């Protein structure tokens, strides 16, 4: 099973950084100019919606609705943001999202490295079953579990609480898989040397292995933070009153509810959801892309 999932991911050059082997110099292998043009057009299609969102969020409501639309704001205003952060409860939604995402990220960083190490380097009964369980969990969609989860959280008093949003995502299969892949690449000799020095098994993990996992753990932290920040279905179900909304829940309910026609407000809301994530991603993109390529899954 592991082999099948590992198969599509080449280990040698996971992110395609490698320079191609020295070329024979035939002109056909030079990059054609038109290719850059096509790629650039594609990039424009990808990026323009974000730019338009950002720019339009600083337009007054009337200008957002203008036909034909203006590209650059004729009047620059922060009224949409003022409304989000003073009349609406966006500071709270932002805090909820951040707390949940941070807790989920920390939980995954700790628990997934632990199991990832066990699966990568230790021999123990039940290992194969456990790894199969991790891979199997990857294909369990949230829609299958949310109804019984809601019954469960209601009965243990976690509905409409932040822990109720955090706990189900505290140790995900993706993180275990990522950490296992990374730790597999660490040399066994390190562990054997520590054993000969008389270090206990848990001590080996915490003081020998974990310090070497810095980049992978950081990548995992960022990826799980982003996934949690964007998570929608479960927070939508479990947050039953407004003060527990996360940003996507609040934005979605505004977009289909009484604020559906306040375009400027909704665009500013989208900016608040999207821009922090894009900023984090752009700052750390090298690590993130590497982590993604390491597992072949998002």
């Amino acid at each position, binding site marked *: 099973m592991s082999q099948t999932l590992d198969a599509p991911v080449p280990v040698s050059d996971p992110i395609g950084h490698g320079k191609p082997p020295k070329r024979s110099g035939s002109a056909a292998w030079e990059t054609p100019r038109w290719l850059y043009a096509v790629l650039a057009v594609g990039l424009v299609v990808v990026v323009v919606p974000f730019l338009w969102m950002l720019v339009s969020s600083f337009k007054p409501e009337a200008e957002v609705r203008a036909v034909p*639309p203006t590209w650059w704001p004729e009047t620059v205003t922060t009224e949409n943001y003022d409304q989000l952060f003073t009349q609406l409860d966006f500071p709270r939604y932002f805090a909820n999202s951040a707390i949940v995402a941070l807790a989920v990220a920390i939980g995954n960083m700790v628990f997934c490295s632990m199991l990832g190490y066990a699966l990568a380097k230790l021999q123990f009964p039940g290992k194969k079953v456990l790894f199969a369980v991790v891979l199997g969990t990857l294909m369990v969609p949230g829609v299958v579990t949310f*109804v019984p989860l*809601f019954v469960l959280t209601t009965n243990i008093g976690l509905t409409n609480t932040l822990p109720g949003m955090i706990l189900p995502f505290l140790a995900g299969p993706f993180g275990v898989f990522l950490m296992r892949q990374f730790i597999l690449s660490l040399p066994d000799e390190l562990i054997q040397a520590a054993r000969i020095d008389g270090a206990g098994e848990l001590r080996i993990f915490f003081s020998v292995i974990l310090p070497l996992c810095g980049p992978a753990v950081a990548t995992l932290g960022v990826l799980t933070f982003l996934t949690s920040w964007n998570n929608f279905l479960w927070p939508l179900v479990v947050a039953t009153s407004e003060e527990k909304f996360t940003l996507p829940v609040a934005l979605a309910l505004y977009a289909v509810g009484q604020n559906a026609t306040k375009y400027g407000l909704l665009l500013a809301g989208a900016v608040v959801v999207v821009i922090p994530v894009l900023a984090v991603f752009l700052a750390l993109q090298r690590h993130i892309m590497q982590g993604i390529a390491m597992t072949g899954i998002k």
Partner: protein
Amino acid sequence: MAAGTPSRHVDPTRRQQAIAAWVLALPFVVLFLIFTAGPVLASLGMSFTDMRSVDVRTPLAVQFVGIDNYTQLLADPLFRKVTLNTLLYLLLGVPLTMAVALAAAVGLNRVTRLRGFFRVGYYLPVVTSIVAVSVVWKFLLRDNGGLVNTMLGWVGIDGPAYLDSTTLALPTLVLMAVWRNFGALMVVFLAGLQTVPREVLEAAESDGASGWARFRHITLPMLRPTLLFGAVITSIGYLQFFEEAFVMTKGGPLDSTRSVTYFTYDQFGFGNYGYAAAASYLLFLAIVLLTLLQFRLLREKD
């Protein structure tokens, strides 16, 4: 293993390893049992009961109704419609996403400069909230004053009200989802392309093979496992289509964009927990079958 040692005693370091391994696995296992395995089984159990929201505090006091929920679902015209819609999301979304992702990956693989720059750029939508980008696209796609129709107007095309049309709304949502998702698959394909040796491609070229022939007869076959993997991951995603429709069309017009996940969420909202669980289980079944099919297909080639 212990069986290899002459004495009946288990090697002490082996035992220490096993204990340590299970200690390290414990948090994951506990969380998995409570929040994944438990609910997956409970969902199956619930799907055979008439559980409703009033039973939420007494989940064991509900009536067993056998396969009633399932027979009712298959006869429910709305469920049939959302199943058909979900299949359409799958059948339109998967090939389109794969085609765009593959084209982008092949293009990026060919360029020598700015590869990292383009790769990050194309990946941007993947990290953003589907809810947020759906809000943005809802405005971009407005009939009057939307950016898309304004730009079409420059070349004399009078664009329709995409999201108000029972025929256009679903394909439009698919296109937006392709825009949002192709970058994820592109990264996977780009990694796969590194396994295609350039020497082989160059040799084929000097033998006179055209660009298309090289792609068709060398690159594609070598990429087969990656493509299959990508197809399954993408299919699982489209089978759970929900947020785009929730924000952009509320499942309308006339349920033309409502998906199985959306239906399940609605039924949960109406308090029909048993019915919702049954619907979600049918979806789960489809996902499991697709995944097994992937393993099967990959193994055939091994």
